[in-house]
């Protein structure tokens, strides 16, 4: 599903350049649950951003579902963001001014679904995450774990093929983290959604079926 071939990423710094990723080759099959691990500054977040089409590699080829990403136009990428890729962030990134319901609905708005379709999809997700009672609350009225649940609900409501999660439990304590990780596992196993997460925690990594260690921009082993 995802194929990286000799992907490099560097930023100009003064007269030289700061290499973040060097010749990364990586293949991820559909249905995998991959954990990317590594110390701070090793390039794991950058790798995730490249996988999520948020950043472009400086060199190398990226094939998403067999298609070359660098050949895609802006519209096609936006289509992928709308349908194929879901994001979960460490800081949740919910829109403070919108209610739980409205936050979950937002990706569907960009997919231009009809009102009734949106309603039923959001209702399904709320039901599944047991959040029906909280649908009219604003993010700041929820605990961190609940906010991240909303974040995940928002990520899956558009039924993506892959979820990219950047330290999804980084801001949560261990009980809440466990709930979130169980949920990811369930999504992976029942819904067959490919999940790629960046994490520091060895425990969290065990929920996945593959671990990628990254250090100084290289994939280890």
């Amino acid at each position: 599903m995802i194929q990286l071939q000799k992907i490099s990423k560097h930023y100009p710094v003064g007269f030289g350049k700061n290499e973040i990723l060097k010749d990364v080759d990586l293949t991820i099959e559909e249905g995998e649950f991959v954990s990317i691990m590594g110390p701070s500054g090793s390039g794991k977040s950058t790798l995730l951003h490249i996988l999520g089409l948020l950043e472009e590699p400086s060199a190398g080829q990226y094939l998403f579902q067999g298609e070359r990403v660098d050949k895609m136009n802006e519209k096609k990428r936006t289509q992928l963001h709308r349908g194929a890729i879901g994001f979960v962030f460490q800081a949740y990134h919910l829109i403070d001014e919108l209610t739980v319901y409205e936050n979950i609905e937002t990706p569907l708005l960009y997919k231009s679904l009809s009102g009734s379709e949106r309603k039923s999809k959001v209702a399904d997700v709320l039901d599944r995450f047991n959040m029906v009672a909280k649908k009219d609350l604003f993010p700041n009225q929820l605990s961190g774990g609940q906010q991240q649940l909303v974040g995940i609900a928002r990520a899956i409501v558009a039924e993506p093929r892959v979820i990219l999660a950047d330290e999804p439990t980084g801001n949560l304590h261990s009980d809440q983290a466990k709930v979130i990780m169980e949920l990811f596992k369930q999504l992976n196993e029942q819904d067959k959604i490919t999940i790629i997460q960046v994490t520091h925690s060895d425990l969290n990594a065990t929920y996945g079926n593959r671990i990628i260690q990254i250090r100084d921009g290289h994939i280890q082993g």
Partner: protein
Amino acid sequence: MFISYLRIAWRNLWKQKVFAAVNMTGMSIAICAALLLSLTAYHEWSYDNFQENKEHVYQLYRKDNTSKGVRINKSFSEPLAGVLQKEVPGVKRVSRMGGGDMPVRYKDKNIYLDVEMVDADFLRMFSFPLQQGNKQTALGSLDQLVLTQNSAKALFNEENPVGKALEVKIGDNWKPFVVSAVADNIPDNSSITFEALTRFENVEDYSTIRDNWNVSSYPLMVEVAANVNAAAFDKSLIAIAHKYMADPITSLKTMGGIPDKDGELLRINTITLNDFHLSPYSTFGSGLRPFYPWMMVMLACLIIGIACINFINLSIARSFTRGGEIGLRKALGAMDRQLMMQFWSEAFLLCLVSLIVSLLLAAVLLPYYNATFRHQLSFHLFRNGWIVLGTAVGFFLVTLLAGGYPAWKIARVNLVQVLKGKLRLNRGSSVRNGLIVFQFMVAAMLISCTAVIWQQMNFIRATPLGYNTTQVISIPADNAPPQARAAFRNKLASEPSVQSITGSILNLGIGKDGSSGNWNRGFDYKGSHISTQCIVVDYDYAKTLDLKMVAGRDFSRQYGTDSSGVVINEQMARQLNEKDPLGAILNPSGQPYHVIGVVKDYHFESLHKKIEPLMIMMDAQSRMNYLFVKVNTSHPAAAMEHITAVWKEVNPLAKNDPGFLDENTDRLYRQEARFSKIFMSGAVLAIIISCMGLFAIAVLVMAQRRKEIGIRKVLGASVGSIVVLLSRDFLKLVLIAVLVAIPISWYLMQRWLNGFAFHVEIHWWLFAGVSLLAVVIALATTGLQTVRAALSNPANSLKID
């Protein structure tokens, strides 16, 4: 989707109340001001646009190129009308016009009406539709009279006026007329106004002006065929001038007149009906200049511009706190276009609320605005579809400008940076700084212009005019019968507070009747040509007005020969070039007058003009149009009330109230006073709106630099040094703005002042003061924020992130 945008926009505005309030207040005030100003400009421009022949009807004026410059004459001699119709190809119709307020009586009803005497073609040249009667025949004979709907109602109530006989007092005689037609009321945007029309042949002095090329007393209007353009018509008028105005041309030549670029000394020029209202040379002009409405529009644009700048700066600054939302929406698959739509719709919502507020505000302020600036605006203007469309388009453009740029800018921010929370408002944003500089430049310009105008207005008020303005009451005599005048004099003679009474054919300044005039005369004296103004007065003129005699004496009842005497001013004496002007014999009209006195120069016209030569004559035949009463009292208001009461008693028909001469002279500068008021209000608005913007920016910048300030304090910076550091950035901007504004306002004001023969000088300290003021205002606006930031405990600011 759009509803979702509006929803989030609404919640956002609600959350950031301060910014929303600053934005909205600024926008509302600005839109309201711009609305009023543009409506005013529109009203001025809409003058005479109901006239069907507005492109083809001209008023003529005469331009003499004298050795001292151009002299304009708006009146023509009686025979010219006939000559034009006969000799100039393309001339379809002509009409002269003369008249004024005259008593009209019907049975026991006796009222003043503005009776204008015009030629038979008048109703066909101008679009004043008739309710009753026939345009072709309404002015067919000399005794026919056309009323307007209002004047017909005033005279006849419900009776049908057509065919009824009534009388008009022209000069000292009642003349019988028959009402032939009733016209619609004159639209309030008509330059030409009347309450009744009769034939031109009825003018009081018709017997003297008839076939007389030497007297020019009435304006002349011409309608030319549609296929004749103005340039061609102007050209054919050159031949007419050569043929019929040879005498004045010869005299201009001997006086050393300077020919224009076509080699002509005397031109007959034209003003199209379109331009009647704003042309300085038109008899029907308002005293406004063509640039006046443009100035209104410019001021409107400046104020809206300043408000838009606030909007842009604040929206951009605010958007950085919403970086997360923007990035997230992009990650969720929002296109740039959609994000722009979202932010634009927020701006739109804000502007819409502002528009509604400003409309309400305008409705509330309108009566006050009309009273202050002497405009007659009403919201009826909004019945005009074009105005509604114009407002809508203007509003849309404002939202596009104010919301579009920030939206465009926001939509293009780098997504990953935003998601990482790294996006920061950089201190040196050149666009933002440029916009702040522009705002303060406009504000500084308006302040300096206001200051200069204010100085000049004070100068005008304080300049001694050479006559008594505070104790003398001027009464427009309104064609009052001689008995009424005599009774008035007799009644006042016994009053101890009344010092003296006199009369004149011309007023000083502009009285409540709103009219002014002058009488230019030219004649030869010992081989050189004399050009002078002339007034005819009654006994005690110099005494009543406190004019100083330099030599000789004023007219006196003790000398029986004074009707052949003349008093001249110093300018005239200089022109005569006699060692002793007393006793000089002047011969202005075939009859000798000897100079009996020289009066010290006084400003009998406005300070726009230099003092011209003047001769003051006495003539039993001339009717005194204005009476002057000098009172000596400590209660001027009571004296005025008393004099008015006495006048109304002897002349119950009196249409215009008496007024002190200082009110009259103030009226001379009404336009300037109006200017200065509008400028002043504009300046105050501009400053307030700019300051609101600066304040909000200061709040934001301080918030962003909290950490920096905290670190500096930990490293040992004093509060004072931090305040200086923070203020410096703002001060720099304000100083640049002032430096740009000074030369521009200097140039503009110098040009304005050149319109006055007597004016103040612009001093350097004025601009120094303005700069200081701008700096103080800027410091005061940002001061609270900087001091608060500098005093804050670094422990708090360093704790977060």
